[in-house]
């Protein structure tokens, strides 16, 4: 190889090193912010009686909008869980997004749904709504049955039929904890400029579910699912909590977030031209708010929980990560005007650049880094022990970051009561850097390539359903 190529590889190795230092520096910083923020949050909960706050009739009515597509396995259980939430005034709008299975039939049978009148209150464009049904036994349950148009389209349809000032966007296959709404609505009471708040997602695989409630929390048996438990702890408790402490939340998970209806409708609803409609909406809410000078706050609340089933097979997980990466890329390129633009405040100067350079471009840099490091070692142009030591640092640092997420969990919510589960999380923190992380990088690179090719599909997500205990009838 020519000297020019070797020089290029040498320069690229420095790019990889810089990326490595920046990425882990940000992770460490958000973990530190999260430590302080979680401690303060725990103390704050001690000084506020949430139930008293909510039951004092000042809590805004909420519509839960749950898009459902081929959810026949889990939909009845999930809707039951939604109907048992502790909140004084809410209704449930399940939006059937043209399912080809028996989702509508199962729901109709279980909740005695019948045709009802409900005129739309907004006119966001969506696929055709075929019928609106309402439960005879649970008057707060509605089903909007529409042609298939994707998740964003289904959420927009729900939004068109939403009558409450605040709505909760979620997945129909998620299980909200009974106090989830009471806890997540708090920012809307404390700050009238709040337009959105996100809660935490936890993995339900391995947990016991009874009558739509998670009654026993355990780590899943499946190793892939175990890695995702650790990953979710890191993403939510260290990452999102840290960004929220900086008032620069750029993503609220589509599986559980609440929004001010008027703000979302004014912003044009969910974008249907991206598979990352959850992040795109948050970025757009920031953008519209900043450009129109409208006060807008976006919060992350760490204790309202939505339990979700995660993929246990490599194929399904790969598809999910591919989609997440495509959504990220589509969102960030669509709103690239915000990148390093001081007009957009901390979001434009901190969060957006982080997601753009480190989360969007990161997997490509990381993957090419593995290749260029290997070439450098094989060609004898670098001391193998030096590169090995660097890789050891990378693994150890990854472990420290994951362990800090486990420590945050112990500091705050301690949802895994068994000591054996805690010890397994320690082991996973070391193990995930030896294979799982690299696989993730590979799937995300594939996602980047899919986005560049213009791929738009969601990919099939196979659900096996929750580990449900039979009803005893008592």
């Amino acid at each position, binding site marked *: 190889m020519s000297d020019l190529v070797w020089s290029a590889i040498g320069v690229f190795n420095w790019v990889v090193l810089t990326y490595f230092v920046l990425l882990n520096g940000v992770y460490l910083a958000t973990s530190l912010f999260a430590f302080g923020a979680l401690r303060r949050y725990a103390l704050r909960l*001690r*000084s*506020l009686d949430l139930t008293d706050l909510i039951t004092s009739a*000042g809590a805004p009515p909420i519509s839960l909008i749950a898009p459902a597509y081929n959810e026949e396995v889990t939909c009845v259980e999930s809707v039951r869980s939604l109907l048992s939430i502790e909140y004084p005034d809410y209704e449930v709008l399940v939006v059937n997004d043209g399912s080809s299975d028996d989702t509508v039939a199962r729901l109709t049978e279980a909740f005695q749904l019948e045709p009802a009148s409900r005129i739309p209150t907004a006119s966001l464009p969506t696929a055709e709504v075929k019928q609106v049904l309402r439960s005879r036994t649970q008057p707060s349950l509605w089903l909007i049955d529409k042609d298939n148009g994707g998740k964003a389209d289904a959420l927009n349809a729900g939004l068109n039929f939403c009558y409450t000032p605040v709505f909760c966007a979620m997945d129909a296959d998620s299980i909200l904890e009974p106090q989830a709404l009471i806890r997540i609505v708090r920012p809307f*009471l*404390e*700050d009238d400029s709040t337009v959105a708040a996100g809660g935490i997602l936890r993995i339900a695989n391995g947990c016991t579910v009874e009558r739509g409630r998670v009654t026993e929390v355990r780590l899943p048996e499946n190793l892939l699912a175990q890695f995702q438990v650790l990953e979710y702890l890191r993403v939510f408790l260290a990452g999102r909590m840290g960004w929220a402490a900086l008032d620069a939340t750029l993503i609220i998970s589509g599986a559980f977030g609440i929004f001010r209806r008027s703000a979302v409708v004014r912003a044009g609803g969910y974008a249907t031209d991206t598979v990352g409609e959850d992040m795109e909406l948050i970025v757009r809410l920031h953008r519209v708010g900043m450009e129109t000078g409208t006060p807008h706050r976006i919060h992350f609340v760490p204790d309202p929980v939505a339990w979700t089933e995660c993929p246990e097979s490599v194929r399904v997980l790969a598809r999910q990560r591919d989609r997440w990466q495509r959504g990220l890329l589509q969102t960030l390129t669509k709103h690239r005007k915000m990148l390093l633009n001081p007009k957009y405040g901390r979001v434009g100067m901190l969060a957006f650049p982080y997601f753009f350079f480190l989360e969007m471009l990161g997997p490509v840099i990381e993957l090419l880094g593995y290749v260029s490091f290997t070439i450098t070692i094989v060609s004898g142009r670098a*001391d193998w022990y030096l590169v090995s*030591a660097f890789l050891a640092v990378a693994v150890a640092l990854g472990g420290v970051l994951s362990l800090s997420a486990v420590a945050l969990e112990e500091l705050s919510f301690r949802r895994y009561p068994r000591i054996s589960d805690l010890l397994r999380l320690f082991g996973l923190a070391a193990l995930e850097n030896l294979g799982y992380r690299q696989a993730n990088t590979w799937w995300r690179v594939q996602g980047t390539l899919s986005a560049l090719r213009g791929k738009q599909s969601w990919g099939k997500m196979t659900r096996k359903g929750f580990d449900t205990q039979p009803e005893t009838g008592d």
Partner: protein
Amino acid sequence: MPDFLARLSLTVGQAGLLILLVVIALLFIGTLILSGYALVMRSINQRREQRLAALSERWLEPVLAAVSDPSRVPEVQKLVDEGDAIRFLDFIIEYARRVRGAEKRVLRDLARPFLPHVLDRMEARGTEMRAWAIQVLGTLGLPQYEKQVVAALDDPSALVAMIAARALAREETPQYAPAVLARLERFGEWNRMFLASMLAAMGPEVSAELRAGYADESIAPGTRAVMAEALLRQGDFLAGDIAARVVRSDQHIDLLASSFRLLAAIGRPEHVDAVRPHCRSDDPVVRSQALRAMGPLGDPGDVPVLLEAMDDESPWPALYAARGVRDAGGRQTLESMVAEGDQRASLARQVLREVGGE
């Protein structure tokens, strides 16, 4: 090669390796510390939970016995060690939040000797600690510590001030209403409906002050809107005339909207003249709320205006107009729309079904 490396007889590569090894060692130590921290936290929290469970078991029955027989209060207080004072306060505050009258008085008596432990936390730098202290004093320490709780209304933290306001804004303590109302503008960031509920909880004894504030043009319109919503929650019939005056003279959208809601609930037919001009307002929020008020206040003569509004480009005014048609004596008109398959049939059907059903 830099001099300092030469002095140490190291090459650049060796120096790099040395740095990496140090970093690995530090990370290894970090790993141990974090793992240890998590295990220690687990152990501490488990022990704390066990201790709290044991104390709760020890206190629960005597506290319940004291609530039914206040003479046993001193006996219960003796069960609490000095070091457990804060835990005891945390324990009884859970009950104190949910009871009133005589039962609450007993819980306050039980707490009294332990409350001085809370005072030094009111000086804490952390907002959350001060908020907790005010929560305890506001729930268990009134009226002895009213000076501290009222002073907390001016705390630099809006959270602490709000907790003080909520503690003071109770029906049984109307004497604090002026202090809370005077600071209402401090809570401008809080949700308006939440603030209105807090004010309404003070009961009818403060209605006159709320009316006076609502009518006072020198007060910020947003604050007056909160007072209007509080009067609405109290069902204060005397506020109708003020609401009619406000909608005739004011332009602030939130204030107008709250006033229309108030008129819809407690207005009288003579107020309808103040409402009518707003049914064609350019602002959809004002238009919807004016149409909402037209239903209960209007008469069959208003039905044509309401029918026209059912075609409003914005869905909310159309919905309120349809309800207005129904409530103003136009039920048959709506039934005809449904029967004839009018383009507004769905809307008509919906509001007809709402009666008694929603």
